């Protein structure tokens, strides 16, 4: 009878400081000499991590009420528009929103400066009502003056992602970095064998309520992420070979650090936010042990031509090939470069491992599992007759 462990058993070991925790890279190494059955015996928790640009990120803020109060209907933070349709002094600031006078500065930069304790100029307008008579306010806020700042990212931590190349004769500026003409480079963004959703491809342990490391503090998986796609083509290991599932995540931004939440600007694309996420996977049984044992040579992804309309598919490569510095696409040797930080992802996986070893981070069993059989809809253009 193969060994089965429960969350409770593993948490008891964590509390006693007896849990054996490895990073996903360490367990991939161990799997070269150990069977999954042995790994269940030896290892309790595997830490996974990623640190990449995740555009679908943002923060809920409550500013507190001024005297006299205002119902903020148009809001600017350092000139960056925040949502003005959310009660009197609540807002949502998206990472990719930009200051129209300086499009290289956006919501992600405001978020980073808030985390760093810097002052931000808040300007807001309202029409004036009987209960909220003020029509305009211009003041200074920082993380200590506001009531809450809650990071809520609707789509993070993509399960696998494509490789980008450019077959055209012109340079292309994309969120996958600067793509040189005639396939002079290829970029990739997943942490491979360290990446969270690649180590639990069927979401046996990651679900709504999973406790995670986010931006330097403890947070939670709030929901399956937007564009949650579970029916994309998979390889023989059951791992999707292109971008598939995602996570919606939440955490207290007041506790976060700009070491793990970093604003970015991509030339001729726009503003984005690098987000650091770490997810622990409990090694509950042999099936999960098999999953976390996966290594870069067993993870495949799809090469897409970002220069051409429809991004045609050009082939498949493994993360081992991508990490070697060179891949072959249509018979041509192409230099590779990452656009997400593996060094930072490793730091997060190691930090999370340390937190669990010390008993500072307990595992939370999902309170609801993710849906299966999901796919994506496109956006149809339907003629509107008045």
């Amino acid at each position, binding site marked *: 009878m193969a060994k089965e462990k429960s969350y409770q058993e593993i948490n008891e070991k964590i509390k006693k400081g007896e849990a054996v925790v490895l990073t996903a890279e360490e367990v991939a190494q161990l799997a070269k000499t150990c069977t999954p059955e042995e790994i269940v015996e030896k290892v309790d928790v595997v830490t996974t991590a990623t640190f*990449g640009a995740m555009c679908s990120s943002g923060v809920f803020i409550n500013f507190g009420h001024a005297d006299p109060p205002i119902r903020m209907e148009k809001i600017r933070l350092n000139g960056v528009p925040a949502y003005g349709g959310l009660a009197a002094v609540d807002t949502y600031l998206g990472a990719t929103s930009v200051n129209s006078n300086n499009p290289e500065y956006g919501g992600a930069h405001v978020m980073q400066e808030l985390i760093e304790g810097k002052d931000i100029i808040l300007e807001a307008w309202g029409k004036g009502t009987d209960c909220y008579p003020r029509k305009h306010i211009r003041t200074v806020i920082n993380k200590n003056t506001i009531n809450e700042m809650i990071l809520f990212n609707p789509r993070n931590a993509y399960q696998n992602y494509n490789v980008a190349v450019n077959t055209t004769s012109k340079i292309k500026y994309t969120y996958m970095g*600067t793509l040189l003409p005639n396939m002079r480079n290829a*970029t990739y963004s997943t942490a491979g064998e360290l990446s969270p959703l690649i180590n639990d491809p069927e979401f046996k342990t990651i679900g709504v309520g999973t406790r995670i490391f986010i931006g330097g503090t403890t947070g939670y998986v709030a929901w399956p992420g937007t564009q949650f796609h579970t029916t994309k083509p998979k390889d023989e290991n059951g791992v999707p070979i292109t971008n598939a599932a995602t996570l919606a995540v939440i955490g207290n931004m007041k506790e976060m650090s700009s070491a793990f939440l970093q604003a970015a*600007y991509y030339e001729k694309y726009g503003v984005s936010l690098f987000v650091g996420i770490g997810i622990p996977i409990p090694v509950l049984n042999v099936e999960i042990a098999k999953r976390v044992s996966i290594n870069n040579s067993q993870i495949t992804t799809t090469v897409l031509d970002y220069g051409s309309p429809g991004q045609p598919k050009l082939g498949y490569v493994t993360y081992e090939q991508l990490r070697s*510095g060179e891949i072959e696409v249509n018979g041509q040797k192409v230099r590779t*470069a*990452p*656009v*997400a930080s593996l060094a930072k992802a490793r730091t997060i996986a190691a930090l999370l491992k340390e937190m669990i070893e010390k008993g500072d981070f307990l595992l939370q069993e999902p309170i609801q599992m993710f849906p299966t059989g999901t796919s994506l809809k496109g956006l149809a253009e339907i003629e509107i007759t008045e």
Partner: protein
Amino acid sequence: MNIVKRRIILRFPPQSGDKPLSYVLVKDYDIRINILKAEVMPGKRGSLLLEMEARQSNLDKGIAYLEAHNVECQPLDKRIQFNSDKCISCGNCTAVCFAGALTMNQVTWKMEFNKELCVACELCVKACPLRLFDIDFRDGN
């Protein structure tokens, strides 16, 4: 005596195009030159990135000759600013650096910058999402 190799940015004043300065470097000072980048704004100024290879004494004399003709000479690495403290090693700059100056360490996956290989193409300036590079090829101080 040791042969040395240096990458130097030369800034030419206006109306300096009539003198065959690089010819003199080769002929009189026995300097092997390799033009890596050149930009000429007629009537205004010009900038040239030269790799110069010669005996140290000849290189010193060649540079003194250029400076005597009002050409500013500054080592390339003095004109490159890189804020390494803020680098997150995302790798975006390495994607565009065909000179091989910006590379990912294959063990640590930290970005490494070997300024000696830089050809001042400036692609990294725009490719870095944190805007950590500044290469001053044209303006000088």
